[in-house]
């Protein structure tokens, strides 16, 4: 009865054993495709992707792998697909600096003012976070926070009869 399965132990450290193809391992950046938008830094669960503008045209991005939870949000949000989640899991190390990736990016400057886009002060449009087709209700002068990619007639009709919410009590 006990002899039927035999010995099932994997010979792992002596023979390589790759992970399945959809396994989320360590992320890597492709510096040819990265534009330095910082979306991955905004979306990182562990706040371990850090961005710092060193000078006018130099932006340094540092990925600190010690806190990374390998969730994959950075790759999901990257607009240029510069981040690939590899299947690399053999990351044991004595020093946490070994799992860091550091990228130095050359940023283009604005054609009119010659400055890079500032990270510290964002403009009003950034703060409002409203881009695309907008359906504010002009009749009741209400700002309605919905935007869509394509013009949507149902949405337009809905906001024509918009009623401001009344305060209770």
């Amino acid at each position, binding site marked *: 009865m*006990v002899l039927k*399965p*035999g*010995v*099932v*132990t994997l010979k792992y450290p002596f023979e390589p054993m790759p992970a399945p193809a959809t396994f989320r391992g360590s992320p890597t950046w492709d510096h040819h495709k990265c534009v330095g938008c910082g979306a991955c830094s905004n979306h990182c669960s562990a706040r371990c992707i850090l961005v710092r503008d060193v000078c006018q045209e130099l932006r340094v991005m540092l990925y600190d792998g010690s806190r990374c939870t390998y969730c994959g949000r950075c790759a999901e949000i990257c607009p240029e697909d510069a981040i690939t989640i590899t299947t690399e899991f053999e990351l044991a190390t004595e020093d946490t600096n070994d799992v860091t990736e550091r990228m130095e990016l050359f940023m283009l400057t604005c054609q009119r003012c010659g400055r890079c886009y500032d990270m510290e002060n964002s403009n009003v449009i950034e703060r409002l976070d409203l881009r695309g087709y907008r359906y504010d209700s002009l009749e009741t002068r209400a700002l309605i926070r919905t935007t869509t990619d394509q013009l949507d007639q149902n949405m337009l009709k809905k906001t024509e009869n918009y009623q401001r919410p009344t305060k209770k009590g």
Partner: protein
Amino acid sequence: MKIFYVFVNIILFLALAPFFEGIIRKLTARVQSRQGPPIYQPYLDIMKLLGKQTVISADNPVFRAAPIFALASILAVIAFIPMGYRETALTGYADVISIIYLLTLGGVSVLLGALASKNTYAQVGASREMVTMIMVEPVLAMTFILGAVKVKSLGIGATMFSLSSTGFGISAGVMLVVFLMALQAFVGKQPFDIAEAEIEILEGPFIEYSGPGYAMFKYYMMLKQMFYASLLVTVFVPFLQTGYYLVNIIVQLIGIALVFVFIALIGSTNPRLRIDQAIKYYAVLVVMAISAVGLSVYGL
């Protein structure tokens, strides 16, 4: 010549006890479908434990002396059992009662060590070990007394070879069955793992020992296992007795290895009994052992 046998006994047991323990671990692993540790692993365990620092956690002399007592008592027993069907120099100086006394002394030193370490888990482990010892020592005593009744003397040589001189009877058969069933309890493996090595559940009575003290306790357990296996082979399988010492020793070692295989197979396929279930089991064993001795008194 007989003094030489004393040293051969001690060296044989000291050198081969971890090997047999390694056989148990490897077999347990194979039964569980995995590739276990290499067979010489317990040697490495003991070497490593001897090289560690001792963390003294309870500063009384009993705590430090308990492992030495345990190892000394089992070495004393080994020095005078007749391996290879030759009596050693010390066999004439001891008899059956002193063997039982020395084995109990080993158990008591485990208890002393556990209770001297002032840890609650160790106290629970010690109380379970006490219960196990109380219930299981009668079976061991009955094994010897069976031999003593058959040859009407208490000397070790005569009692241990009693079955070869007076022949097997029903009483010896019953005793063999009882001994096989109690072997797991003597040796401290599943299903009677309750006090000694119960590291998974309650950390056992050795919880505060580290380094060399623990190495001595581990060696004590391995030597105890090998002693009980050799007791089974010597008393109950006296057929293979050639005249040559070396051949006898090798045959006995093969027999001991088979007993260890048996221990490992039963140990890895059984769960661990609770203490109240185990007490009921031991009570049945003690009654059967006493009945076997009773049968032998009537000459059967």
